[in-house]
């Protein structure tokens, strides 16, 4: 059964439409990766699913319930957690306090301070540190831990590796299988294509607010993805409609 079903969703900021008429499904326990250039609408799509941005059109169904009209905190209580772009920690709170606020949904599940410290041991050492005084990688670990504290069913990871040293990104990716063991579904937005192909069950490629291409790492070629990524006329698609008039 699909845990999340997005149907014909459109969203944006004021007059700007960042996501238009987009549909996809995420199966239970699946890791769905969204790739695309800057400005393709990936972050907007995640924010729309989390409820920070209201959809102009379309519907979002989560665990069989229509949540399109639910406010952000209600969706979080239902089990959607967003790890936002830029981490967005609470800077006047300590690491542990950030994690505790993350448990604001009071949802039951495997994640609590102890298990999050078990998964991300670096956090236990830093627990009393003010979260403003952390490195980028440490902040990212707090942001992931904070989202897990809500015991979500679906976690939305926005640009987890952006601006981080490769070695730290490696550590974060190493924790993925442990996170997924609990049957958690993940939508991952990532710039690093190689890494994405390594972990994703399915990939969606976004361009200018549209989902251009969808498939599994096995049945998509690298060429197809890069074409969709950069918006080249998609010659490499087997079933591409003839690009009449395109140069």
């Amino acid at each position, binding site marked *: 059964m699909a845990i999340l079903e997005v149907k014909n969703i459109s969203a944006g900021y004021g007059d700007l439409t960042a996501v238009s008429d987009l549909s996809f499904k995420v199966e239970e326990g699946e890791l769905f990766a969204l790739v695309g250039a800057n400005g393709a609408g990936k972050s907007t799509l995640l924010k729309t699913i*989390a*409820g*920070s941005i209201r959809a102009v059109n379309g519907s979002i169904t989560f665990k069989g319930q229509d949540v399109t009209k639910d*406010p*952000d*905190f209600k969706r*979080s*209580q239902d089990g959607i*957690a*967003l790890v*936002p772009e830029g981490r*967005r920690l*609470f*800077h*006047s*709170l300590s690491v542990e*306090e950030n994690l*505790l*606020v*993350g*448990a*604001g*949904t*009071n*949802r039951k599940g495997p994640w609590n301070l102890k298990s999050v410290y078990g998964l991300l041991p670096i956090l236990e050492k830093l627990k009393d540190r003010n979260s*403003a005084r952390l490195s980028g990688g440490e902040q990212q670990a707090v942001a992931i831990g*904070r989202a897990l504290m*809500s015991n979500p069913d679906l976690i939305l990871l926005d640009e987890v590796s952006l601006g981080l040293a490769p070695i730290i990104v490696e550590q974060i990716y190493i924790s993925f299988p442990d996170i997924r063991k609990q049957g958690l579904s993940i939508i991952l937005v990532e710039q690093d294509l190689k890494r994405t192909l390594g972990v994703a069950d399915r990939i969606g490629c976004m361009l200018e607010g549209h989902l251009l291409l969808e498939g599994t790492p096995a049945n998509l070629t690298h060429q197809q993805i890069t074409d969709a990524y950069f918006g080249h006329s998609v010659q490499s698609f087997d079933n591409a409609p003839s690009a009449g008039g395109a140069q």
Partner: protein
Amino acid sequence: MIWLNSIAQGILLGGLFAMSAVGLSIAFGVMRIVNLAHGDLMTLGGYLAFITIKYSGMSTWYTLIIVVPVMAVIGYYVQRILFQRALRMGELAPLMVTFGISIIIPNAFTQLYTNNVQQLPVGSLATSSIQLNNMVSIGTFPLLTLCLSIILIAALQQYMARTKMGRYMRAAADDSEILRLMGVDHRKVYGVAMGISFATLTLAGVLFGMRQGGVSPYDGHLTVLFAFETVIIGGLGSLWGTVLGGIVLGVAQTVAGQFSPEIPLLVGHLVFLGVLAFRPNGLLGKEALR
């Protein structure tokens, strides 16, 4: 010695200023609401105490047990029903709403109880004092106010630091959008914060009325100024800063009063302007993060 006495009186007065400023600091710190009606709500608290005395005959101190919780509940619903809607309409709307309240309250009480001062008797405490030496004497009531103020601020500090709701308030001050994504209904958090703000300003309003001998409709126009000055001098977002700000403002006023009875307010404002010019973040304020 006479200076020492006026400094002592200033510190005591500062306790009252600090108490009246705490609620303003919370409303701005957590909700980013600039509450222009803060002083008039203090007046409202004073009048509620007066009305309670009038109909029950209890002493002013006991009315606090009724008036403070009542105002806390009012604060919660004013936030939920009025300010929350205003917040959705942008930054200017809450300012206009509080400005409106600041006009309604004094005018309503002028209609109901005239412009006259309504008594808030302190009882025997009004005149009792502790004589330190032949020049310095500490009034029992002002001392009590200062102690209450410090206890209140220490308690609030602990509440903010240790309780779940306090944590949510600090998180909301940092980033309320993300707090909502953590499954926390920010409107409830805001409501509780405004409830605390109303409770503390009521306590300050009643004590201010007791100190002045009573409450009159337009007291709020002055008290709101003192509260703002205290918050700015001490530093926005710092609870202990309000104690320091209150004491600085209080001492400035009483010391100036030694020179001439006409200049205390003026000197208080000048000290405030000086802080604004040379330490815009206040004496204990954090560097602006945004």
